[in-house]
């Protein structure tokens, strides 16, 4: 039960990743940086919750996610990006507009803004949103998804992003224990978006060792190293060697974006992506974000009666019997008649 460390490329001598991946990582980085700035400014101008004024994107989460086998056909890997973290979702094919709709509670989100945070569930693209008091529960869910992959012999891996705090919750332990015991293809990234709690002394590596699962820690590595660490964890998972925990050591915002800039420099120098190409990628990424921000205001809020969405398949709850709105469903009976059976449609 000795945890197998995944190979992690450290130092700046990391070999290039190839053109396609490099381009994608560049795009994701530029996009993320622009999106971070847009959200902050939308929050300052009152178009988004003021709580988002300090919104940040950890570009490394997008790099990890891009190392998965993303596919838009429901047969690629599965990713839970965390409750408010668009990085991995963007790598899995989500657009800035989709993200902004979520945080702006628009009627155009998949749940008509019924669900809070980023309810990223889109099984076709392989994204699954949070759904409960956070800490740890999603590791259980993704462990079960990974179980399904293994059971059907599919080449698919489940990737969950959790906060450090998740490791304090029993639910997380039950999830990783189950995943480790069954050696299912699961990767759990443990990140810390808030300055580390001084009383929290969790040693993520020791936790991984106690479950006999793989472990890697990444911090200020260049993108190449982070990508290779994630790719190695994926290979390990796909080979039936079980889950890996990847600890993302917190970095200041500036350092994060410096990682991106350094990568862009190397990409220009090593991967044969010329200065003008680089600029073109940046422009395209920024244009997408700007388009989304501009469009956001025109996106409609949900209609009140979207609250009556099905809770059981085929059966939306009826509107309360005291509502007189003639177009609400289930109110065709005379006003004032108690409308029993609201939730019990079959």
């Amino acid at each position, binding site marked *: 039960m000795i945890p197998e460390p995944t190979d992690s490329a450290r130092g700046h001598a990391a070999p290039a990743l190839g053109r396609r991946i490099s381009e994608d990582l560049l795009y994701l980085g530029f996009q993320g940086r622009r999106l971070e700035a847009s959200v902050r400014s939308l929050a300052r101008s009152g178009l988004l919750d003021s709580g988002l004024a300090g919104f940040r994107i950890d570009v490394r989460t997008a790099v990890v996610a891009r190392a998965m086998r993303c596919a838009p056909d429901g047969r690629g890997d*599965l990713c839970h990006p965390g409750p408010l973290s668009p990085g991995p979702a963007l790598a899995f094919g989500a657009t800035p507009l989709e993200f902004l709709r979520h945080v702006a509670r628009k009627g155009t989100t998949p*749940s008509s803004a019924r669900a809070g945070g980023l309810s990223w569930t889109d099984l076709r693209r392989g994204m699954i949103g949070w759904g409960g008091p956070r800490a740890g529960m999603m590791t*259980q869910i993704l462990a079960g*998804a990974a*179980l399904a992959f293994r059971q059907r012999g599919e080449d698919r891996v489940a990737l969950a992003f959790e906060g450090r705090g998740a490791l304090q919750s029993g639910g997380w332990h039950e999830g990783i*224990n189950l995943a480790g015991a069954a050696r299912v293809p699961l990767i759990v990234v443990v990140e810390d978006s808030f300055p580390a709690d001084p009383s929290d002394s969790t040693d993520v590596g020791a936790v991984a060792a106690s479950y006999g699962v793989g472990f890697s820690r990444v911090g200020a590595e260049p993108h190449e190293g982070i990508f290779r660490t994630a790719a190695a964890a994926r290979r390990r998972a796909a080979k039936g060697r079980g889950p890996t925990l990847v600890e993302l050591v917190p970095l200041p915002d500036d350092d994060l974006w410096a990682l991106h800039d350094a990568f862009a420099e190397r990409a220009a120098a090593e991967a044969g992506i010329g200065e003008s190409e680089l600029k073109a990628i940046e422009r395209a990424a920024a244009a997408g974000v700007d388009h989304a921000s501009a469009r956001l205001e025109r996106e409609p809020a949900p209609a009140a009666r979207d609250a009556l969405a099905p809770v*059981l398949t085929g059966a939306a709850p009826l509107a309360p019997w005291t509502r007189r709105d003639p177009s609400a469903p289930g109110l065709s009976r005379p006003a004032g008649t108690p409308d029993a059976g609201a939730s019990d449609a079959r």
Partner: protein
Amino acid sequence: MRVEAPAHVTRTRSGEPATVLEAIGEALWEEMERDERVFLMGEDIGAYGGAFKVTRGFLERFGASRVIDTPISEGGFTGAAAGAAHMGLRPVVEMQFMDFISPAYDVLTNYIATSLYRGAGPLPLVVRGPVGGGNRGGPFHSQNVEMAFFHTPGLKIVYPSNPRDAKGLLKSAIRDDNPVIFEEHKGLYRAPHCREVLPPDDYAIPLGRARTALEGEDLTIVTYGLMVHRSMDAAAELARDGIKVEIVDLRTLLPLDEEAIAESLKKTGKLLIVHEDTRTGGIAGEVAIRMNERAFEWLDGPILRVTAIDSPVPFSGELEDYFLPSVRDVVGAARYLADY
């Protein structure tokens, strides 16, 4: 090599009367044969065959990837079942005793029940296991769990009273696209008076529909599970005094078949709810207010209830018998209502 079904899941094929336990085994076996997406998870359900041996022989037939022995972590494996359901599988989770569903309360009520509403798609999964008192199991092996979940939109709750219903309802629960809590009363598992020959065809009984267990015109008893039998015994006694009781066996608690209740109430004018679960916050309350909303003018007496007393389930037999609703309690309450 195809492994033959074990004896405890072949009563119907051989035309013999089946117990509730056997009927449940048959439903699981047949659904697993019918649909390869169906799989089982639970503690000791594989080689050991489960605490009540419901899944004896399943591992041999369906293999370890469809009959999964889990760690002792009810929350974790219920959550994992949800993840598997997202990916298109149809998990059936066994709680060794349904009392142990409480560590899964969080994931069931928050994640699983809300999935469809949150736009994350339906989660077809069944959580099943033994419930109920009378087995001298004490406070942690005797609970009825329906009221822990009855208040949660997005779940269904099923609680059969006989082999035929148990098999047909479990098949429907497995085929249903929604999460279903399926309660099996231990006192009915092997009860000899409860054996019956099951229909030989692949029948399913729709969720959400009550069954008239006995027709009568003086008084309606709404009940479910083991209490159907206790109510039938009471009805037999009451019949000797000329009191004709109608018994509605709810079968599905959520969604509640209030139409069936209201129809019966409109016929009899009197309503008694009998449940094994404790009194305060029991299902009788919801039945009462639904009938107020829907059939108040038909009430010729108060809506009353016979239930267990408001305490944990006591361990010793003497105490437990006192704690549980008895035939005498039902008879007493029914007489009171009939005379009202």
